[in-house]
């Protein structure tokens, strides 16, 4: 177990002025981009990753975590005010948030969303802090065969849960693994798929691939489908009674069980790679409505509806870090970005992280808790500002994002070659999105591929090439069995669910950062 002094040192690292400023900056940027429909925290994290290159690991990851958490709060603002979720996970918030806003109580709705979001997020962070270290100890007992089996299981879950169909998820995973084989083979150090480009010796640059597929492709996709329409201005009603502008402690406390249920659902779902915060939000909303004595009030501006969705979608953020930090397996687009940032810093997330970089991990936990506090304070004072900024022209936002993408990739890869790689992966991302292949699955597989190949090599050596020797590794055997079952079951489930799919989830909103207004 980690020494207590390391835990204290980590938390005190998080409280240094530099780290605090980066977390605050991240939260401000996150709330802003969350409030801007079409940008979203994942795209911003992708753009920010190369700029974190010059920072130390803690402020770098702290900045990205701030962006992610800020985005969760910011996403609810346009959902409530203009019925257009800033982030996909805020889609469920619009169900009760927008009607409450239309009743002339936009600030009440926004504040309930803020309080619920911070509550859910803090809950899952505390669960993460308490559970992560013991989980990492268990994970450390796993050998290469078990690690390989676990990766196969994670791939099968992610392939099955994200995207239009299981086969598409599997194809995206294999494409990610294939793309990562470019460069030197880790076992024999022989070049693969270089095509005469010696810049590819180290493989495709992580920053170029991440920005190309997740940010640049998304910007182009948005640009080509843009209608040039200007969003309506948002004005808060003046001379409102005080109770219509605030959430009293009594009102907040009346939602305690709703908040707790949402946080539990979000934490549970977040811990499973691939489930996503949108699913958590809708699930929490449905269960709250179902268990309510007055379900007819939902959808008409009930604060419990906002509390249920916001506490659930925000609590996914902390829980999402569990598989990332303890097993090195990212389960969502935002954690894929974080693993990219870790790798750029030369750090391999996984169970060993707690031993080798314990201080950094606890610094990270400190930064997460601090980000929640910042989210609360900045959100409280910034709600009116963000509400004004959501009317800023998309032309400005997207042109600036493009410039940042080019500059960021050039800096991270040290040359124009990386920029061209980014363009190629933007094209790949565009084609994949157009053909309904989940880009997030592709990127997660790409990031995990080096570990996958290493674990495969080690497993082959341990098993001496004989799969029958797997009987000596019961955990791995169970995980392989679960992988097969997961693919089979998720395939059947997807087929059965298809006709009943709600309108909101038609185009895999969990990972498509940019919901079109009509989907809200």
């Amino acid at each position, binding site marked *: 177990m980690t020494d207590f002094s390391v835990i204290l040192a980590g938390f005190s690292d998080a409280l240094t002025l530099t780290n605090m400023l980066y977390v605050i900056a991240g939260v401000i940027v996150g709330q802003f981009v969350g409030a801007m429909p079409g940008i979203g925290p994942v795209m911003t994290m992708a753009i920010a990753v190369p700029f974190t290159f010059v920072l130390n690991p803690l402020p770098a990851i702290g900045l990205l975590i701030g962006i992610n958490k800020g985005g969760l709060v910011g996403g609810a603002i346009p959902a409530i005010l203009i019925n257009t979720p800033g982030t996909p996970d805020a889609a469920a918030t619009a169900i009760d948030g927008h009607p409450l806003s239309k009743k002339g109580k936009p600030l009440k709705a926004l504040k309930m969303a803020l309080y619920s979001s911070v509550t859910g997020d803090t809950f899952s962070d505390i669960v993460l802090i308490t559970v992560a270290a013991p989980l990492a100890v268990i994970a450390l007992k796993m050998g290469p065969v078990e690690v390989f089996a676990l990766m196969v299981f994670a791939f099968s879950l992610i392939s099955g849960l994200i995207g239009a169909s299981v086969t598409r998820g599997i194809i995206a995973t294999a494409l990610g693994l294939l793309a990562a084989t470019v460069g030197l083979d880790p076992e024999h150090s022989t070049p693969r798929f270089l095509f005469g480009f010696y810049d590819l010796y180290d493989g495709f640059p992580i920053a170029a691939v991440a920005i190309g597929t997740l940010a640049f492709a998304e910007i182009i996709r948005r640009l*080509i489908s843009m209608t040039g329409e200007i969003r309506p201005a948002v004005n808060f009603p003046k001379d409102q009674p005080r109770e219509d502008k605030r959430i009293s402690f009594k009102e907040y406390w009346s939602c305690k069980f709703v908040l707790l249920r949402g946080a539990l659902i979000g934490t549970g779902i977040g811990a499973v790679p691939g489930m996503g915060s949108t699913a958590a939000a809708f699930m929490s909303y449905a269960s709250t409505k179902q268990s309510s004595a007055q379900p007819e009030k939902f959808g008409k501006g009930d604060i419990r509806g906002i509390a249920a969705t916001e506490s659930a979608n925000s609590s996914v953020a902390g829980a999402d870090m569990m598989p990332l930090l303890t097993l090195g397996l990212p389960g969502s687009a935002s954690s894929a970005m974080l693993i990219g940032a870790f790798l750029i810093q030369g750090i391999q997330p996984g169970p060993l992280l707690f031993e080798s970089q314990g201080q950094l991990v606890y610094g990270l936990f400190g930064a997460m808790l601090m980000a929640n506090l910042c989210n609360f304070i900045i959100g409280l004072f910034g709600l009116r500002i963000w509400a004004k900024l959501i009317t800023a022209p998309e032309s400005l936002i*997207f042109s600036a994002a493009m410039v940042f993408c080019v500059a960021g990739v050039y800096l991270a890869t040290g040359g124009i070659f990386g920029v061209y790689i980014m363009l190629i992966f933007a094209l790949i991302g565009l084609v994949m999105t157009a053909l309904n292949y989940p880009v997030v699955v592709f990127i997660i597989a790409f990031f995990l591929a080096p570990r996958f190949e290493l674990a495969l090599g080690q497993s082959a050596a341990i098993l001496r090439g004989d799969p029958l020797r797997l009987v000596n590794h019961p955990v791995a055997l169970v995980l392989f069995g679960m992988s097969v079952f997961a693919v089979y079951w998720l395939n059947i489930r997807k087929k059965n669910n298809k006709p009943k799919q709600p309108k909101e989830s038609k185009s895999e909103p969990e990972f498509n950062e940019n919901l079109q207004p009509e989907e809200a």
Partner: protein
Amino acid sequence: MTLERLQTVILILGMLFLYFVIMPGQIDHIENARIVPATVPTISIWIIIIAAVFQLFSTKVSVKFNPTLCLRAAIFAIFVITSITIMTRFGFEYGAPILALGVMLGIGERRLHWLFLGSTVIPISVWLLVENVLDRVLM
């Protein structure tokens, strides 16, 4: 044949081409090893082929082709590549404003103050930040 089936067939043919034509020339052949350089690419390619064949006969997902969007995407792609070429030839400070201005005009922005902010202030600020504050060379 629907577009969905057509794209799946293209994917299968592409993977077969990669496996039989490209891979032998791009990956060294190593013997007497359990895991060779071609192992993971081979596994990946065959997973894609098997999944794609399954998809060909079972999928109900429909893919729509929108020629207008494809044309716009192609125009954007050509414009972006041209702007980046200008950046490499003449420098970021000249290419980035052209890129930003083209994007803004392309999506219908005509308000001068936003055009000035997006195409001049932001790219030049990025350039100044990187070259003078971070002390890094930007193209």
